[in-house]
Structure formats: C-alpha cells, structure tokens
C-alpha cells in the first residue's frame, strides 16, 4: 500500500498560550469576543500550565509575558516549560516584572531542545496586584476545556516538578515561549 510521507507542520518563532495555533487556550481566545485587557485576579504563587504542541525538533530560548497597565504588580514572574509528566525542562527563574502594557522577555537559564509532543508552558507570578497582567478574565470552564492546569505552588519561582491540578484561575494571562535569539 502506498503511504505518502506525512507533512510536518513547521513551528513558528513564538508560541503563545492564547495567541498561537499551537497553544491550547487559542480555543478560548477564539471563543472570546473581547480584546485582551489589563486584568485583575491572578493569584500570587499560583502556577498556570497551558498545553502546547511541538511538531518538529526545535530549541526554545526565551519566555515572555504581557505586562498589564501596572506590570510591577505581578512582583516576580517565572515562565517555564514542563513535559507531560510535570518535569520542568526550562525556566526563566524569577524575573522582576517591569514595564506597563508591554511584552517582557527573559531568557531561559538553559535553552531546551524539544522533540515532537505535547508540553506545558507555565507562568507564575509572585504577587497579585491590580492590573498586573494583560489577558482575559475568564470563567473556569474556558481553562478546563483547553486542557489547562493550575497549581497552588505557595512559593516562587516555578517548581522543579509540577503537580498538575484542575484549572482554578479566573484570569488567563498572555504569555508564551520563543525560539529566537533576539527580541520579539
């Protein structure tokens, strides 16, 4: 039987939890009728885990997030990557949030080569002030139907091993990862 080789979907430079074809919450985003805005309601020391898909081997070098109108109200931010078993593969470590209503980037302590598969990108703030992040104030089902998890870490930054728990955030920040060596 003839079997043509399957085409491999190429990977973009940036994958966002919300804003990319490869990020799981894009379904919730597409469902949303409103623009992302500065949001109140993130929880200090709560990690958010959003599935994303890697279709070909790619090396990831940076994490990014979209500060709200008072970005510093997040305190420190960490962005990382986990495998499906909850093992941390990359992390920015704790980075002081700086700048309002702009994207902030931070390099991973070590870049990571990901083979095709499902992974989780993670975001954790150390504080929970007003308008700390830009994203969506969303009902719980949106995070659940996208396959997202949360974890009440209770400390900062992201844990070496995640303990995935049912989604429990009313805010989905705009954050993600990049494979560029330069600023996005």
């Amino acid at each position: 039987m003839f079997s043509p080789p399957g085409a491999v979907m190429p990977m973009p430079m940036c994958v966002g939890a919300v804003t990319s074809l490869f990020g799981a919450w894009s379904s919730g985003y597409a469902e949303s009728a409103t623009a992302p805005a500065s949001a109140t309601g993130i929880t200090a020391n709560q990690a958010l885990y959003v599935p994303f898909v890697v279709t070909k081997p790619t090396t990831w070098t940076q994490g990014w997030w979209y500060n709200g109108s008072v970005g510093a109200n997040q305190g420190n931010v960490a962005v990382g990557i986990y495998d499906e078993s909850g093992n941390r593969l990359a992390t920015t470590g704790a980075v002081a949030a700086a700048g309002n209503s702009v994207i902030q980037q931070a390099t991973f302590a070590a870049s990571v080569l990901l083979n095709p598969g499902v992974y989780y990108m993670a975001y954790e703030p150390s504080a929970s002030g007003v308008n700390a992040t830009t994203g969506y104030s969303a009902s719980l089902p949106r995070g659940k139907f996208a396959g997202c998890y949360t974890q009440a870490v209770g400390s900062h930054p992201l844990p070496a091993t995640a303990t995935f728990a049912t989604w429990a955030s009313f805010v989905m920040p705009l954050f993600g990862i990049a494979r560029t060596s330069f600023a996005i």
Partner: protein
Amino acid sequence: MSFFPPSAPMRSFPVITTAHPLSCGIAMRPGGAAAASTAWATANQARYVPFLIPDPFLVRKLLAYNGATTGGNTDMGVYDENGAEVVGIAAAAQSGTSAWQEFDVTDTWLVPGLYYVGLLNTTTTGTYYAYANKELGRMAGVFSQAVGAATLPSPTATFAALDAYGVPVVGMSSRVLI
C-alpha cells in the same frame, strides 16, 4: 484495500494572508481590533509577517492590501526563517485604494517551513490595512527592519523587534487568478 494516509497533514491553502491561522490570524483576531487603513509611518521601513507552510507551496503572487491613500513604491519579498531572501517582486508604485495590489513573482516552490513576507514602502504617506496592536503582533512573531533604502534587503533581512506600526495585511498566492 482502502487507502489511509499515515497522518492527515495540515495543507497549505491557495491564498494565505495575515488573517489566516497559518499566519497571524489567531493572534490578531478576534481579540484585537480589526485591520484598518494605516499610514506606513516610517519611510523605507520593512515589516515581516510570518507564514507557516505545511506542505510544498508554489508562490506565484504576493499581495498587499492597500489602504485609503496610496504613496511611494511598494516592495515585497519572501524570506526564510533565517532572513534569507527566497523570491521578491520588482518594486513598483503603490496603486489602487482599499484593494489588494497583486505582484507577480518568478514562480517559486517553498518547501515546508516558516517564512516571512516582507513589505516596504518608500514614504510615510502610503497606507496599508494593518492591525494596530503592536504587542499582539510581537506575540505572533512579526518583525520589522529600518532598511534605509527603497527596496527590501537582498539577499538577507535582519529581523528586529516589531515597531509601533503594527501588522500589515499581506499575502501570498499559489494561483494567478485571485
């Protein structure tokens, strides 16, 4: 025996534009504002919009969605993810308002990968339809470059963080009739 392909790959569409999921569509809409006619803002500035090409794609035309006012010359080209030029148009006067302007290129096959369609205008008065939210554009991996010349760089683009203009609406076509 019935035929089952080993996997169902995502296929390229005959016309792909900025608004498509294989480009910036998911990032720019519906959460952000709709595209609107926007002055180019910086003469001889390039903006590079990403396109994911999942299977071989024959580029026959490049497209720019002109805004309400035309001005200067338009240059367009396709670059690979490392900034290497793949194919380009012959720069030409911007022509036609609130309409797609089509540019022929040498028919060129793109192998699957990440590419960028570059757009440059020589003035600050020419307008194109664009998504204004710069930060959403950055999330989508859109870049810009202060070229400082009337044509796009050849053979290599130098990608830099997106400037304040936003994300122009451009496209590529594998068809001649659009």
